[in-house]
């Protein structure tokens, strides 16, 4: 048996639904059998990945309870061989997996997506944050069409349930509220401020403004879009307030 065959067989044995042993492992004169020795690796693979999911999806695990979470995590591990060198990325497809498995409990996948996005913001790319002075400097230089860009950790996800309340309750060691479908979906902004991931809900107009920030980016383009989509709103005033909050929240980057 050459190295390629051995490594392929070993890997296949660990991905299998049960540990069946292998004839290319030496039977030891003492101690465990070859199958039990392989079992050490078989179990370690599962335990390690379930631990990563527990760590990444901390709020989701508390919400579901140990037994249910561990069963779902074990099923995910069995059906999703890791393709990541960075083990921290292994849970990328766990939220959609939960959405499919728990189709009648969609708040669970929303909670998982929130856990995942906050974790990714934690060690996402750094950037130099724009200050009010930076913005005033750009304005005083009389630049036509000032362009803004979001910090690289910023993302928006939409929630259809009171998932945000559930997350807060779990985070404060309180009993989560009964799940409720929201009258209108809400957008949740997630980003990193300093070393800490942050999140907050967005009003429709701010969500639209941030979507513009992430695509076009120029002050003029954002203003024009808001004027068109929110004809009954005093956009100049609203946008001014928003801009100050974005600067305070550190969601605008000054990096080229």
């Amino acid at each position, binding site marked *: *048996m*050459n*190295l*390629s065959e*051995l*490594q*392929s067989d*070993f*890997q296949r044995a*660990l*991905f299998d639904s049960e540990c069946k042993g292998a*004839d*290319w*492992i*030496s039977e*030891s*004169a*003492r*101690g*465990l059998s*070859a199958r*039990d*020795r*392989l079992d*050490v*690796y078989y179990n*370690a*693979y599962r335990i*390690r*990945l379930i631990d990563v999911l527990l760590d990444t999806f901390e709020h989701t695990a508390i919400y579901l309870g140990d037994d249910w979470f561990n069963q779902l995590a074990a099923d995910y591990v069995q059906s999703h*061989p*890791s*393709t*990541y*060198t*960075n*083990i921290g990325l292994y849970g990328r497809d766990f939220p959609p997996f939960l959405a499919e498995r728990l189709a009648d409990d969609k708040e669970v996948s929303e909670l998982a997506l929130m856990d995942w996005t906050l974790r990714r*913001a*934690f*060690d*996402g*790319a*750094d*950037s130099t944050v724009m200050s009010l002075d930076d913005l005033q400097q750009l304005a005083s230089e009389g630049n036509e069409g000032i362009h803004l860009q979001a910090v*690289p*950790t910023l993302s928006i996800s939409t929630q259809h349930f009171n998932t945000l309340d559930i997350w807060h309750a779990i985070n404060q060691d309180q009993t989560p509220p009964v799940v409720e479908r929201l009258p209108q979906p809400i957008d949740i902004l997630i980003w*990193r401020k300093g*070393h800490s991931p942050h999140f907050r809900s967005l009003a429709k107009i701010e969500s639209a403004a941030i979507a513009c920030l992430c695509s076009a980016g120029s002050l003029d383009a954002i203003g024009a879009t808001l004027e068109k989509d929110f004809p009954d709103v005093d956009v100049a005033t609203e946008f001014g307030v928003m801009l100050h909050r974005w600067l305070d929240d550190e969601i605008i980057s000054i990096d080229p």
Partner: protein
Amino acid sequence: MTSGFGLGLRTEHYNDFLAEPQPVEWLEVISDNYMVDGGKPLAMLDQIRANYPMVMHGVSMSIGSINGLDKDYLRKLKILEQRIEPMWVSDHLCWSGVHGRNLHDLLPLPYTAEALQVVKRNVEQAQEVLQRPMVLENVSSYVEYNASEMTEWEFLTEVCQATGCRLLLDINNIFVSAFNHDFSPSSFIEGVPIESVSQFHLAGHQDNGDILVDTHDHPVCDGVWDLYRQALIHFGYVPTMIERDDNIPSLLELIAELDMARAIADDVLNPKVAL
């Protein structure tokens, strides 16, 4: 080359290292934990690096993979190496997955001529990117292969001689594998080239009765301390560190364990002459 005794840097001890100088000559960082885009991990690393020499220790290079090394992984490793300018860069003599899959484990290799050629090729690739000798660590193992043609220490010696790479001898891993595969740990220690050894790891393991499991969640046991003493007698002074990855105790407790290593090294290398 550094001197002295080190610890593995763990997030639980960031504040201890930032608050005041600690009696640790150098720190080992898990490379993979800092091969990220940004945020707190890299900020903490930079701040602590300002006051401590560091070595980098990876867990995912998969230097024994038949498929060769992941170029993106090497690129990120090189970026981190340039950032913290470590004294050396180590990883394990193992493989972790093939064909785009990852088992996130340190899987033993069959000690064959073919595997030797694969490891030689991969070590040379890593050394070409890093522009420095790799340091390879012996792993704990729970299986041996029918295909093996030589011992682990013979294999390591061949790799060192063929590539110029160096060795990180994990004394606990020698202890664990020797028990699991019924070989003499002294044979291992005496079987690798003295001049190739750059570092020692000391760690704890779990005793399951008929097998020892390398968990790094216990203090160093008496048997491993005895083997450390034996290694010092054979190799002389080698930079040594305590490696704890789980059930992390206070820094004070780890420093006490490191002081034990210091005392043993002092006892072995500077014997007191009775008057």
